[in-house]
């Protein structure tokens, strides 16, 4: 007769929980397919619980050697540390994340400045790169006293003559 996984699962449960006298007729039928008699079932049931108790309470007269732990710790301290994940990634995005995660404020500021200048440079017409934008001399003149720019059209002559 086929002894399926299911039968064995049920049998293990029965051995742990029910004496033969409390089994249903279906359960008895199953038990008697695996054991020759009620006495054998009861004997195995007792043995299983006894063995479980003995094994869980069993202690050894010897202990693990403490030197093992020391040796393991020494080996562990000699192992190379793994590389930080960010540094091993090559993408530009990861590099930016790494740079901006830096704690140095000055470094961040410099980086932002470079980024700003680069953007300005790229957006500038090619012909104008490398030269100062021309100043319209008809509408502006320099105040030589304080180096500020004035719109001559908005400043009255009276004010200039005083």
């Amino acid at each position, binding site marked *: 007769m086929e002894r399926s996984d299911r039968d064995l699962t049920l049998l293990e449960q029965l051995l742990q929980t029910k004496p033969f006298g409390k089994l249903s007729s279906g359960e008895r039928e199953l038990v008697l397919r695996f054991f020759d008699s009620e006495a054998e079932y009861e004997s195995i049931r007792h043995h299983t619980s006894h063995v479980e108790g*003995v094994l869980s309470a069993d202690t050894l007269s010897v202990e693990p050697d403490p030197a093992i732990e020391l040796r393991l710790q020494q080996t562990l301290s000699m192992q190379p540390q793994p590389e930080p994940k960010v540094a091993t990634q090559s993408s530009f995005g990861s590099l930016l994340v790494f740079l901006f995660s830096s704690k140095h404020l000055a470094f961040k500021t410099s980086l932002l400045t470079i980024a700003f200048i680069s953007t300005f440079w790229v957006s500038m017409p090619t012909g104008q790169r490398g030269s100062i934008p021309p100043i319209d001399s008809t509408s502006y003149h320099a105040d030589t006293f304080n180096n500020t720019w004035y719109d001559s059209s908005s400043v009255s002559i009276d004010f200039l003559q005083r």
Partner: protein
Amino acid sequence: MGLVRERNAQAFNELYHRYHRRVFYYFYRMLGGVDEKAQDFLQDIFMKLVEKPEYFDTSKRFSTWLFSIAHNMCKNEYRKLAVRKVIDNEASVDVAQQNETDSATRTDLNLFTDQLFRELDQLSEEQKTAFLLRYREGFSIKEISQVLDCSEGTVKSRVFYTNKKLALKLEAFNPINNY
């Protein structure tokens, strides 16, 4: 285990303290109660963990993975021992004789325990492992099947028949049979 992979010493110590006695017990019982061998195997298994933590199979629970490594180490050792089977049998007879002479001063429980492990030593490595993991470690059938890398049905059958065989061998200790 993630921290151990990053060579975190504290995480490793935690794992070691949590498992070293259990693993030592397993090796001791699996390898015929030879202290030195169990110590060596204990060091080897944790050394593997220190040197190659990336081998940890994240699909398994750590305890299941650790015992599957331990099981494979024992399996290899059993293969080596098979070559020296005759010598081992002679040694076990000596141990049995020694135990008989000591029996007068031992309690029934000690006698039962000694006899249980002597009978376990006569079983195959697979039967012994399944039995210890089930009744000592309290692993589920599913976990044992992962450790032994076999089906759950095979584990159930192995545990059941090992138990039945041991019960027959140890029936002298069963009070039910002593009426």
